[in-house]
């Protein structure tokens, strides 16, 4: 175990009493509670943490936050392996294991770093110009290589074992970021009584304030942070969420947030989710997201050891880590001076502050007083070193070299870019502020306001004041009565920092703009030369800003370089589009608990448990589970079971759960008229106590749905729909009743789950039911003729019996209230023992209905008309109805459209397949000669062969002819005879039995 060689002896918000053991690339290290992986590695003197995307250059950590482009690792192992995890955001826990990525065989020796040698060829857009010779080599060879060397970490291949959750938030004021501006905003809004949610990405509050030695309200900054967080936590109307990032600003003033509930501890997290995805609806939003420091573009500026100045300060201050023994500083603004002072205070050597400004101001004196050397009008030329910085070369702005400084860390500040990411997502345009050399948000277009550094305000007093005002304004806008007397937290004034533009420090080497994607200054020039003049073209051609950090530290430098190439100013060039997420979000978090079998809810019928007891094999029908078939033992195959079930229905009797059919109760004096307008056939004259099969069209004339509807009373109908269209039909009825014919007095509601149903079909159906219901109802032809409906009482429950048949047998459907379903099933099943009753599933149901030529889902594919189905005669000529006018269009009324027929194989040993096409000449089977297709097939016991339904051009006029069913996917051709779609008992004698 190596010692923490770069750990400072004191300082930092770490718990030295709690050492933690972790590993990186299988090497064991120690850190402390409160560390991040990045800080702990630095503490152990590890600078090399990753390899870049294209050139596989050695990279160390650049930042101390979520904007990190370089230090990406694979965190955890096995099914929990998480690629591309920013070491700066990984809170250390005991036993943490991380692995470097995008390198082979090891981080310090990476074969792919030969890419650097070819670097001169691998410039922006190189792949568009190459890999074309010979052309067949692209997929077989080049692409494989590109893909393998691209990508970053490796994803897990096993199912993610962790849980994720969702949550929904509501507030008056949502505050983004808990820096000084955000804290002040939360405080003023919270004190005024508004419901506030304060969200902070980091585990701690305070933002950049943690790095400042200023005093607020006469307290040291860190003490003030503590006091404020205590007060906020005590306010009942305020919710403080740390370790939570707001990743997207959406319509309706809704923000998406990701809470890292358990990412900072070792798994598993019993019963708790790993992460929680929040949808927060805010009346008003205060954005106080701070600013990101950006690097300076100079030769080899990507060497491990080159870090942002604020990051260096963070490592020293928050983590008690020396990022280097000797830290040279380069800057174009005041920020790096604070870093120098901090380093100095921690006893770390600062050989030089190289300041690009000619006249930096007062801080120079202060630095020199401390004995720190300051060079003005001084720029970096090159960072040197192999796997990490060893030297820094300095130059004047004219390109003349000054000297070589030995150092193992370079702290860089190229100024700050206000974090306008979220606000830009809302549609606000970022506008250039020449004073700070950064983009700030234009006027809000949503219920939102920015405060603090994200708006370009960099002095502490300003941030506090703006935050305070924004909190009050937001609360007020949310309708809260705000006290006028509230005062903002006070801080002393700070000097205005000046800044000078250094977009590219002169040099001829590789100078990186976008670190992760290896976009150099030269790439941007090249893209421009090739015509990529628009910033969006430049981005796409060079991939600037397209890496996992989305260019947080690189975009402004990049577009400034493009502006230089175009000879135009930065605002003319503009920014690329900001898009969610602000920082990448795990896919699992979006899915939440909707995974695996819980992807969608499952709907069960009242008799589900009875089916389970009978060993049913279930099938998904929409959200329902229905019995597909009931194998009698382990040996019976599905095919055998289906055949047996269908056979038994015809021979004796079968029972089937038909509860999933949509059921709608329709009431009202105008119910009859209403149904008349919905169905193509008449329902107004349907006698009470009778059922009728009905067909509905869509407005465009195609068939929508079918089902039997019964009249229970003058003003009360009971409608059924197909399982698939139950919801659609109800919505359609809502539309018709509320929008189209509001004058009709009609009311309806779903009764699908109030009633469950069993179909009992077969020659012994009546016998079984008589026994099952103990004679509670007379089912004789005289009392209950075909299409009759009766109500009766069974064990105290209202039951309804319908003399309808889908199978063509003597059949009844009995509906009872849900709670009686299982009992009814059991009663019928028990009564059936004496009559050889079998339960049958959807498959046998399918065979039986095909034998009778009844259309179902397969025939109702949204492109068919009533005529196509052979149901044209049902279209009433006595009344208008939905779909009639447009069904008369020439192409829909065309007699030559494929229409419903039956098919039988000429050789009865052959099977038929759904999806086969029909042709006259098997030797001339083409797309053009296809005359139709097979919709449904079944192995029919009654017919003794496979049978099928099909749509065939001019089919009804071709009964008796022989054609071919071709299925090229399996190279099958079957000769078939065209027949009437009703294969069995064409006269319907059994039905009336």
């Amino acid at each position, binding site marked *: 175990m190596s010692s923490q060689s770069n750990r400072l002896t004191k300082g930092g918000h770490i718990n030295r009493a709690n050492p933690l053991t972790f590993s990186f690339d299988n090497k064991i290290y120690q850190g402390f509670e409160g560390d991040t992986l990045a800080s702990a590695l630095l503490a152990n003197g590890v600078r090399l943490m990753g390899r870049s995307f294209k050139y596989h250059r050695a990279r160390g950590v650049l930042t101390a936050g979520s904007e990190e482009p370089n230090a990406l690792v694979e965190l955890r192992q096995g099914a929990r392996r998480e690629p591309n995890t920013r070491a700066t955001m990984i809170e250390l826990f005991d036993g943490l294991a991380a692995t470097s990525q995008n390198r082979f065989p090891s981080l310090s020796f990476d074969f792919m770093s030969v890419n650097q040698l070819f670097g001169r060829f691998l410039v922006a857009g190189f792949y568009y110009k190459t890999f074309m010779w010979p052309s067949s080599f692209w997929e077989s060879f080049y692409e494989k290589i590109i893909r393998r060397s691209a990508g970053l970490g490796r994803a897990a291949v096993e199912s993610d074992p962790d849980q994720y959750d969702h949550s929904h938030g509501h507030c008056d004021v949502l505050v983004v970021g808990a820096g000084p501006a955000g804290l002040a905003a939360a405080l003023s809004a919270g004190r005024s009584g508004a419901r506030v949610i304060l969200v902070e990405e980091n585990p701690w509050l305070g933002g950049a304030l943690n790095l400042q030695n200023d005093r607020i309200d006469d307290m040291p900054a860190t003490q003030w942070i503590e006091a404020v967080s205590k007060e906020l936590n005590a306010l009942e109307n305020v919710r403080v969420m740390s370790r939570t990032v707001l990743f997207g600003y959406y319509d309706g003033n809704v923000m998406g947030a990701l809470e890292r509930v358990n990412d900072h501890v070792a798994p598993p997290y019993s019963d708790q989710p790993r992460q929680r995805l929040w949808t927060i609806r805010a009346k008003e939003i205060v954005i106080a997201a701070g600013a990101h420091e950006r690097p300076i573009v100079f030769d080899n500026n990507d060497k491990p050891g080159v870090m942002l100045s604020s990051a260096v300060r963070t490592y020293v201050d928050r983590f008690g880590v020396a990022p280097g023994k000797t830290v040279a500083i380069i800057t174009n603004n005041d920020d790096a001076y604070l870093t120098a002072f901090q380093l100095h205070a921690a006893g770390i050597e600062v050989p030089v502050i190289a300041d690009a400004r000619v006249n930096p101001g007062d801080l120079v004196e202060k630095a020199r007083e401390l004995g720190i050397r300051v060079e003005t009008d001084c720029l970096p030329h090159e960072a040197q070193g192999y796997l990490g910085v060893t030297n820094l070369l300095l130059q004047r702005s004219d390109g003349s070299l000054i000297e070589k400084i030995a150092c193992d860390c370079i702290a860089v500040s190229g100024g700050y870019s206000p974090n306008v990411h979220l606000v830009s997502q809302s549609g606000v345009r970022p506008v250039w502020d020449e004073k700070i050399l950064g983009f700030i948000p234009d006027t809000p277009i949503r219920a939102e306001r920015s405060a603090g550094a994200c708006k370009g305000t960099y002095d502490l007093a300003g941030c506090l004041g703006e935050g305070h005002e924004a909190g009050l304004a937001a609360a007020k806008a949310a309708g809260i009565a705000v006290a006028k007397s509230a005062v903002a937290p006070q801080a002393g004034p700070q000097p205005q920092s000046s800044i000078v533009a250094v977009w590219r420090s002169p040099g001829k080497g590789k100078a990186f703009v976008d670190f992760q994607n290896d976009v150099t200054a030269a790439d941007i020039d090249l893209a421009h030369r090739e015509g990529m003049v628009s910033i969006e073209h430049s981005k796409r051609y060079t991939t600037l800003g397209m890496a996992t950090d989305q260019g947080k530290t690189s975009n402004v430098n990049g577009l400034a370089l493009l502006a230089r190439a175009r000879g135009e100013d930065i605002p003319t060039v503009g920014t690329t589009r900001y898009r969610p997420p602000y920082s990448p979000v795990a896919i699992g978090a979006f899915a939440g*608990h909707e995974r695996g079998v819980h992807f*969608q*809810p499952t709907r*069960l019928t009242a008799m589900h448990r009875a089916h389970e007891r009978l060993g049913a094999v279930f099938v998904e029908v929409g959200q329902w589970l229905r019995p597909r078939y009931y194998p009698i033992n382990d040996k019976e195959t599905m095919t055998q079971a289906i055949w047996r079930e269908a056979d038994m229905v015809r021979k004796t009797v079968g029972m089937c759960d038909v509860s999933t059919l949509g059921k709608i109760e329709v009431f009202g004096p105008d119910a009859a008229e209403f149904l008349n307008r919905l169905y193509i056939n008449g329902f107004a004259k349907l006698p009470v106590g009778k059922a009728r099969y009905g067909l509905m069209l869509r407005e465009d004339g195609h068939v929508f749905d079918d089902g039997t509807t019964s009249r229970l009373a003058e003003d009360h109908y009971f409608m059924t729909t197909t399982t698939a269209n139950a919801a659609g039909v109800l919505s359609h009825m809502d539309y018709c009743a509320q929008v189209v014919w509001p004058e009709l007095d009609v009311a309806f509601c779903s009764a699908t789950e*109030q009633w469950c149903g069993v179909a009992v079909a077969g020659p012994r159906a009546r016998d079984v039911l008589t026994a099952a219901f*103990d004679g509670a109802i007379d089912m004789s032809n005289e009392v209950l003729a075909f299409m009759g409906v009766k109500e009766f009482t069974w064990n105290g429950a209202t039951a309804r019996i319908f003399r309808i048949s889908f199978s063509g047998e003597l059949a009844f459907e009995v509906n009872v209230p849900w709670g009686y379903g299982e009992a009814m099933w059991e009663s019928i099943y028990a009564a059936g023992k004496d009559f050889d009753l079998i339960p049958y599933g959807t498959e046998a149901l399918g065979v039986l209905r095909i034998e009778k030529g009844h259309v179902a889902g397969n025939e109702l594919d949204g492109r068919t008309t009533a005529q196509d189905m052979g149901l044209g005669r049902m279209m009433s000529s006595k009344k208008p109805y939905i779909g009639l006018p447009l069904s008369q269009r020439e192409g829909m009324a065309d007699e030559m459209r494929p229409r419903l027929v039956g098919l039988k194989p000429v050789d009865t040993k052959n099977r038929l397949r759904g999806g086969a096409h029909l042709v006259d000449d098997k030797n001339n089977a083409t797309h053009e000669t296809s005359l139709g297709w097979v919709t449904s097939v079944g192995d029919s016991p009654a017919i003794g062969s496979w049978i099928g339904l099909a749509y065939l051009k001019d089919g009804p006029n071709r009964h008796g002819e022989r054609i071919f069913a071709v299925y090229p996917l399996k190279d099958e051709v079957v000769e078939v005879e065209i027949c009437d779609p009703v294969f069995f008992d064409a006269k319907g004698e059994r039905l009336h039995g």
Partner: protein
Amino acid sequence: MAEFNIVTPLSHLGLVAGKGTSSAGVLLADRPGLAIAQVFAKKGKTAAVAKKLGISAEPCVATSHENYTALPLSPGQWMLFATTGADGSFQRLLEKQIGKNGYVSEQSHSRAAIRISGAKVLDVLSKECRLDLHSSVADVGFCAQTTMSGVGVLMHKIDDSPTFDLVVFAGFADSFWHWITQASAEYGVELSRD
């Protein structure tokens, strides 16, 4: 005939009655056997029906009587709940009460009712409920139809502790129960039957 057995959507879970004294953050109770009926007013008869039944026709405001609770569903439509009468007698009673002013659809068997209470109620509900259930917005008596975990839910705030009744379609009861017990697990959950 085998012993006659009326099931309710969650009866297969074998939950037992009675609240325990555990420190669970969430208490979930199946409320089987309620009488439920959907009442419709004929055109222009909303006020008449409301008056006959003594219930509010205002959106989102439940009316609780000694014998039944009425939750308005949409203009001229309510769902009514009673502890007895699931055999259809509640529906018939209501039919009689409103006379020619409207219609009543028997729905006693169509739904499962789940009562949720305990200190962490809002934490659990906010996982899937998109509505703002803060007491400043949703007072006692608040009721709404919404969607949770992909399932349509009719919810009703019973008391200030707070306690909510969640009513879902019978076919979805299993799925919904699975979700809500899972969602409650992290807070400690106690399951029972009313």
